[in-house]
Structures are given as C-alpha cells and as structure tokens.
C-alpha cells in the first residue's frame, strides 16, 4: 500500500472501518509524514502524540473513526489553548465546539496548523511561528489565514484539516495550495472555543483534496449529512459571472484557467451586476478589522510583530462613519446577491487574482499593476463573508509559475450540498486533473 496520507480522507475512513488499515498505524504514519515534510513548509505548529493516542483510544464509532485531522490554531483543545498565530494563548485549553464534533465523529486531532498573525492576512508570511510555505513551492506563501491547513493538506501531511474564513481565509489558501476549501454559511459551526467567536464574518469549514472529502469532513463540522447528488442538478446549473470587479483585474492565466473550467462544465452563464460590489473590498476590511479591535489588549499589541502592530494603529484611526457606511453597503450587497439568486444557481469568479507570491517578496502582479495580495484577495473573497453565503474553492489549473489556480463558487445561504455537487461536476468536467495533481515537492519525496 502507498503511504496512508496519499489516500483520500474517505478512503482512510473506509479502510479503518473495514479493518484493512490499522488506526494506530495510520496515526503514527501521519506523525511521521508531518515530521518528514513539515520543516520547509512550517504548516503544522504543534503535534502532541500522547494526546492524539489518547483520543484514538477512546474514539467512538463514527464517520471519521480513527482518521487524523489537523485543526487551525483558533480552537480550544482539552490539552492546548489556541494562539491565533500570536505568541501567547488567546484562550485557555478547553473543549471547543469544533473539537467536540470531531471527537464525537471518532476523529483524531493530530496537529494544530499555522495561521497568519491574528488571522489578519491572506499570505501567511506573518506569524509568531514564522512564515507558512506553499505545498507547491516552500519559497512561496502558503496563504492565510488558514495557510497551515491549506499547505498541510496540499503537501499530504494530512487528508483533512479545519480552517476558518472571515475574509476568504479558507478559500484563498485552498486556491494557493491547490485544494478544495469550503466556507460554510455563517453560523454553520459552533462558536464556543473559537478565538473569533464574536465575528459576524468568520465561519469554519473543511479543507481537503477534493469535494468528496470536503463533503465527509463538512458533514461532521456542520452537523448534518451533506449527501452527494442531493441537489440533483449539478450538470445543468445557471451560473452568474459577476464581471466587475471580480473578473476585471486577474492574471491572464488565472482568468483563462477559470473560464476553461467553466466552459468544460457546460453550465449556462450570465453576467449579473451586484449593486455595491465595487465597495466590497474596503467594506470587508472595515468590518473584519474593526470587529477584531475590541479583543486586543495593550499586552497583545506589545506582543505583535511590527507590521501587525502598525496595521492595528492604522485601523484605530479609521473614521467611525465609514463603518456605518460599510454596514449600509453590506445590506445592499446582501439584497443584491439574494436578487441574483432568483436567476442564477451559483456565482463564480477566480478565487485569487494571481498565484501565491514569494515569501521574501509578498506582492502580486495583476493587470492594474503590482499590488498587495491582501488587497486583491479580499476583493475576490470578502463578499462571501459580508453576505454570510457559503463558498468553495475548486482547483482548476496550474500557472506557468508552477503554482495552483482556483475557481470560486458561491451559493445561496445553506447551499453547501449544491456547492459540493457543483465542485464535483467541475472536477469531473476537467478530468480530475487538478484535484489529483500532486505537488512537485511531494513527487520528489516519493521518488526519493
């Protein structure tokens, strides 16, 4: 048998359930894989073999019985308080809601994944634990804020990880690392024991290699069965491509790969206009950053790296009336999106405008010029958080730079099953070429 972490999450679960794969051997092999591959990636910030073994020893029967899962550093575990990418614990150890869901499904928490400092960026190059590398090139950013989860799944350290998404933080690193990441509808997962529980933007979700695995882990996290084919209409969808601002300013290869994938699906497309979409980027920035400020203490600020500390100071000077304006635009956007779903089943555009930037030069180049990746990433993803609707990244190509390209699909509130069906349809329409693609780093190690 190949290394068990080269198996899908669902195959791991099925083989453990049938007795063909010993769960203790799977756990040990996973810890070994993390030890072997994590160094240059810095995707996993902590493992705890004894705690994982104890969790396995008392694991109940369930859909993930004996299957290792990594969790972003935002959730309380009984043996570890989350750090949020910062030096100190943001919460004490405890049983977060997400932990309880995993435990009750029989899963084994095998590690905690890295994240951008306080979740405040889409690159992952700023963290108290060092930058997160990309699964396809460790010199490039693994993304953020759930970059550790993205890189860990992409590089096959684990087959499933939990991420959170307050401004694209599941979908963006999923795109950067060539994996499938699903942000649930706001409120789909429990908030207790989550460091950003007060956010009106953030939501957890599964990060896996493909939609079928995301369906398995998502069913556990969302506490409801996300049945395959339940929508019954993945091949005949009406998809809205919102040209401005989401298709206007993307790297040419990214644009081309996303359009080719959509063409392959045979879906009917239209170009709806969303009132207020031109403001979605800064409205996301305002909501996301200002919601975080009340949680910060002087001690937190003293601990922060110079870049993060300066950005917090900038945020403190933003005029209050801008937030009032932002909330009016949020209402406008929610109404506009709801109206779009009267004639479209899904909305679609590139998840990221350009592939992951280098860690030592974290800038991207788009047709409007070189810019900060956060700026274009929040523009592409933030509307999903402002409105609360679910969204998924589907791998649809590899750029000439050697880095993955992702297509984003957004659906109406509660449409996770439809999104997963649609993502599987994209996978099939593209011959599973991109979800089954192995990062060159993993290929090299396999050859060695």
């Amino acid at each position, binding site marked *: 048998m190949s290394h068990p972490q080269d198996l899908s999450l669902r195959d791991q679960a099925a083989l453990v359930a049938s007795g063909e794969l010993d769960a203790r051997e799977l756990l040990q092999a996973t810890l070994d894989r993390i030890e072997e591959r994590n160094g240059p990636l810095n995707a996993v910030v902590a493992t705890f073999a004894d705690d994982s073994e104890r969790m396995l020893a008392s694991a109940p029967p369930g859909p993930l019985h004996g299957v290792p899962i990594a969790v972003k550093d935002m959730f309380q575990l009984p043996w570890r308080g989350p750090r949020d990418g910062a030096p100190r614990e943001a919460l004490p150890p405890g049983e977060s809601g997400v932990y309880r869901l995993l435990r009750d499904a029989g899963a084994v928490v095998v590690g905690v994944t890295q994240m951008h400092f306080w979740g405040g960026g889409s690159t992952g190059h700023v963290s108290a634990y060092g930058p997160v590398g990309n699964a396809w090139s460790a010199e490039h950013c693994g993304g953020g804020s759930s970059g550790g989860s993205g890189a860990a799944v992409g590089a096959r350290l684990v087959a499933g990880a939990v991420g959170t998404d307050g401004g694209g933080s599941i979908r963006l690193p999923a795109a950067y690392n060539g994996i499938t990441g699903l942000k649930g509808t706001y409120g789909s997962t429990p908030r207790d024991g989550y460091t950003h529980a007060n956010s009106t933007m953030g939501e957890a979700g599964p990060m896996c290699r493909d939609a079928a695995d995301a369906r398995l882990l998502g069913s556990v996290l969302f506490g409801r069965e996300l049945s395959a084919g339940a929508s019954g209409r993945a091949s005949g969808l009406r998809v809205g491509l919102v040209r401005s601002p989401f298709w206007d300013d993307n790297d040419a290869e990214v644009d081309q790969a996303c359009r080719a994938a959509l063409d392959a699906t045979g879906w009917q497309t239209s170009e709806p206009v969303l009132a207020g979409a031109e403001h979605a980027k800064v409205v996301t*920035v305002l909501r996301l950053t200002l919601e975080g400020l009340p949680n910060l203490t002087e001690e937190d600020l003293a601990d922060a790296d*110079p870049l993060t500390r300066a*950005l917090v100071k900038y945020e403190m000077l933003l005029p209050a*009336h801008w937030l009032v*304006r932002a909330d*009016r*635009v949020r*209402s406008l956007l*929610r109404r506009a999106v709801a109206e779009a779903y009267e004639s479209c089943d899904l909305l679609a555009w590139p998840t990221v405008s350009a592939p992951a930037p280098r860690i030592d030069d974290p800038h991207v180049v788009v047709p409007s010029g070189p810019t900060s990746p*956060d700026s274009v990433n929040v523009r592409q993803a933030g509307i999903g958080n402002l409105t609360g609707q679910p969204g998924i990244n589907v791998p649809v190509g590899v750029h000439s730079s050697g880095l993955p390209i992702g297509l984003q699909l957004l659906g109406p509130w509660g449409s996770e099953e439809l999104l997963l069906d649609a993502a599987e349809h994209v996978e099939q329409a593209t011959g599973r070429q991109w979800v089954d693609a192995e990062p060159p780093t993993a290929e090299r190690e396999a050859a060695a």
Partner: protein
Amino acid sequence: MDAFEQHVRAGLELAGMTVDDTDLAVMRAADAVYGPGFQALAEADLRDVALEPDLDPSRAPRPA
C-alpha cells in the same frame, strides 16, 4: 510633516500611543492600497440605502 503624518501622530497621541518610523511607513503603504477605496466609500451616495433591520448573516435577507 505632511497632513497624513500629522493626522497619525495627533490621533494616536490622543489614544495614548506612540508612532515610530516603521509604523508610519506601514500605515502609509496601507493607505496607498486601501485609501482610494475608503475615499470612494466615503463619497458614495448611500442616503437611500436602508440598513437591513435584523441583519443575520446565517440567512438570506427578509423581503422588504
């Protein structure tokens, strides 16, 4: 000292915080990226846009 630096220094001094050169450089860079968008938001005519009275991101907005 330009208007941006005056604003930053005075605003943070009122909040009891200091500003160093790194802070200022980062804040200038952030303002170059996001400032035009903030300005456009500040100038947008939103007088007729009604706030959703019971905004709940977990569901679609209720019909007016």
